[in-house]
């Protein structure tokens, strides 16, 4: 395996370069960071918490949250922890930091200070530096994770991990294609190898750091096979750099059977491919994201979407659920709205914690279908990479053999068109160049024709648009008006 690992020499070279890109970088000292992490109590370690959740078959609750200034951010997190009863805490990073625009972020901090309210859509961790991060991680009792969307997160990782965070979201594909425009895929993958290697170095020193590829991608009609492949590939890339604790994610699609099948198949497939790549020692857990697409503006309706997501999360046996809020359609939530989302989720999760979605014929069919599709895409990746997954995924994305719907990145093909079938399953209407067999596509087509027949219209692009709006307008399948 070590053939894939970034060498120490190379690593240190990059490190010196990276730490110099913003003044706060100079405070980072790896040995000091190890010592700092060593005294963080186990109850605050994210990797440990995820492993325990899986063992105890519990579904942990985690919100998203981040504001511009340190004291306000601490107040927010403490509120979510006590009043909101969150199990795991986040620190969501602002969009300037995500694009390494630390000057813009600094300006945002400044303006927020003057406006006495956060004008940034997240916490600018790089600008606040080691001291700021440590104030945050020390102020809370729960494990805490960095959540962002950063194609080049090397400096962010250095600062936040040294700052006491014990989990880091993202990956070279999942934090490029949905989040960036012009970043070449090989570039983001290389930069994320650094992040994973950094985590590997912590692991080598006995510090467990959880890594979580971003499952939902664009959050909009993403077929399970697409996000599964990205998750599995990013998992392998992380394992190659020495990562040990991996949480793979999936964003709620809307059909209960498909969603449950997705979580089940994700776990099974990941083990299959991780082992195929020669990995045996790792902790694999899953995370279910409540509905990631457009939300209904009405708060009562938003609560229903949140509760339904919570329901599927727990019934599928996901180890963690990422919680939305009743403000989702409108803007960054207040701390109260954020806590409301967690409370609704808590109620649903606790009411259902002793239940699982019963195994059915439909579920077996869909689980097998997803597996077939993922294998078809993975085969193409191995083929295009001549056996190597990294080379393969870059080539596959370039060729459109793997294609993420509605994504902003120019490196992405963008020809795939997904659409719901008559029961709300996400199917593929136009595969673009996706490496899916005729047999697979015939199945999708058949399912879509069923819907077209019911709606008395042909399978058409309008259906895609209707489906995108559907949940925010109060339905799942976008029926003609």
């Amino acid at each position, binding site marked *: 395996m070590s053939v894939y690992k970034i060498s120490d020499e190379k690593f240190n070279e990059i490190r010196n370069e990276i730490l110099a890109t913003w003044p706060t970088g100079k405070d980072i000292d790896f040995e000091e960071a190890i010592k700092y992490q060593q005294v963080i109590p186990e109850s605050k370690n994210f990797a440990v918490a995820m492993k325990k959740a899986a063992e105890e078959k519990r579904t942990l609750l985690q919100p998203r949250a981040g504001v511009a200034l340190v004291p306000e951010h601490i107040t927010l997190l403490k509120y979510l922890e006590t009043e909101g009863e969150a199990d795991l805490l986040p620190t969501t990073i602002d*969009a300037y930091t995500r694009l390494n625009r630390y000057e813009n972020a600094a300006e945002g901090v400044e303006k927020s200070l003057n406006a006495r309210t956060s004008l940034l*859509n997240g916490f600018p961790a790089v600008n606040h530096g080691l001291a700021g991060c440590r104030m945050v991680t020390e102020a809370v009792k729960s494990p805490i994770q960095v959540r962002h969307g950063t194609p080049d997160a090397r400096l962010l990782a250095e600062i936040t991990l040294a700052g006491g965070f014990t989990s880091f979201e993202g990956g070279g594909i999942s934090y490029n294609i949905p989040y960036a*425009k012009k970043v070449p895929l090989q570039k983001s993958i290389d930069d994320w190898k650094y992040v994973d290697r950094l985590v590997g170095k912590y692991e080598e020193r006995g510090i467990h750091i959880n890594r979580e590829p971003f499952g939902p991608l664009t959050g*909009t009609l993403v077929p399970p096979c697409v996000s599964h492949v990205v998750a599995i590939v990013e998992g392998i890339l992380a394992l190659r750099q020495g990562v040990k604790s991996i949480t793979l994610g999936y964003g709620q699609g809307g059909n209960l059977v498909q969603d449950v099948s997705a979580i089940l198949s994700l776990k099974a497939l990941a083990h299959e491919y991780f082992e195929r790549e020669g990995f045996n020692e790792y902790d694999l857990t899953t995370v279910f994201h409540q509905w990631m697409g457009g939300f209904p503006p009405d708060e009562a309706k938003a609560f229903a979407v949140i509760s339904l997501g919570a329901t599927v999360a727990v019934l599928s046996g996901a180890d963690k659920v990422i919680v939305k809020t009743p403000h989702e359609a409108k803007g960054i939530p207040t701390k109260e709205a954020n806590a409301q989302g967690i409370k609704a989720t808590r109620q649903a999760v606790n009411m259902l914690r002793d239940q699982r979605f019963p195994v059915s014929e439909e579920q077996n069919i869909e689980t097998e279908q997803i597996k077939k599709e993922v294998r078809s895409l993975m085969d193409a990746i191995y083929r295009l990479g001549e056996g190597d997954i990294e080379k393969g995924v870059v080539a596959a994305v370039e060729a459109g053999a793997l294609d993420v719907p509605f994504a902003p990145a120019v490196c992405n093909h963008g020809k795939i068109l997904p659409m719901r079938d008559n029961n709300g399953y996400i199917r593929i209407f136009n595969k673009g160049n996706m490496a899916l067999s005729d047999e697979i596509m015939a199945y999708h087509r058949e399912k879509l024709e069923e819907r077209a027949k019911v709606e008395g219209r042909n399978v058409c692009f309008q259906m895609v648009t209707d489906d995108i709006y559907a949940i925010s307008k109060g339905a799942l399948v976008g029926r003609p008006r």
Partner: protein
Amino acid sequence: MSTPYNIVLGVIGSDCHSVGNKILEAYFTENGFNVTNLGVMVSQEEFIAAAIETGAKAILVSSLYGHGEIDCAGLREKCIEKGLEDIILYVGGNLVVGKVPFEQVVEKFQKMGFDRVFSNEGSLDEEAELLRKDIQERLK
């Protein structure tokens, strides 16, 4: 529908929300506009350059991610600077951070020089209709 009007479309700043942008492009194109879509993460300069290049009658700016206030400030002034005194500026999406009463948002962005300000709850039919009218008005 007579000759199609040229319009420029894009998501401003460091904003990556591409779904609405793709829908707006499809919708305005289908409804008889000649759309230059700059996609996501568009700077003020890029908007203006494209408007000049295409002789656009209007720029439709989207901002979803909350930094709209910071990203949009000064766009009207820059337009004037570059000789686009008459260009129609629309802006829409989730324009500020947080759930803020929409009237306040409208006021804020009108002060910045936007002709019309839209939330994410509007109807595209009405929006296209308004745009057509506003352009015709300006052309008189």
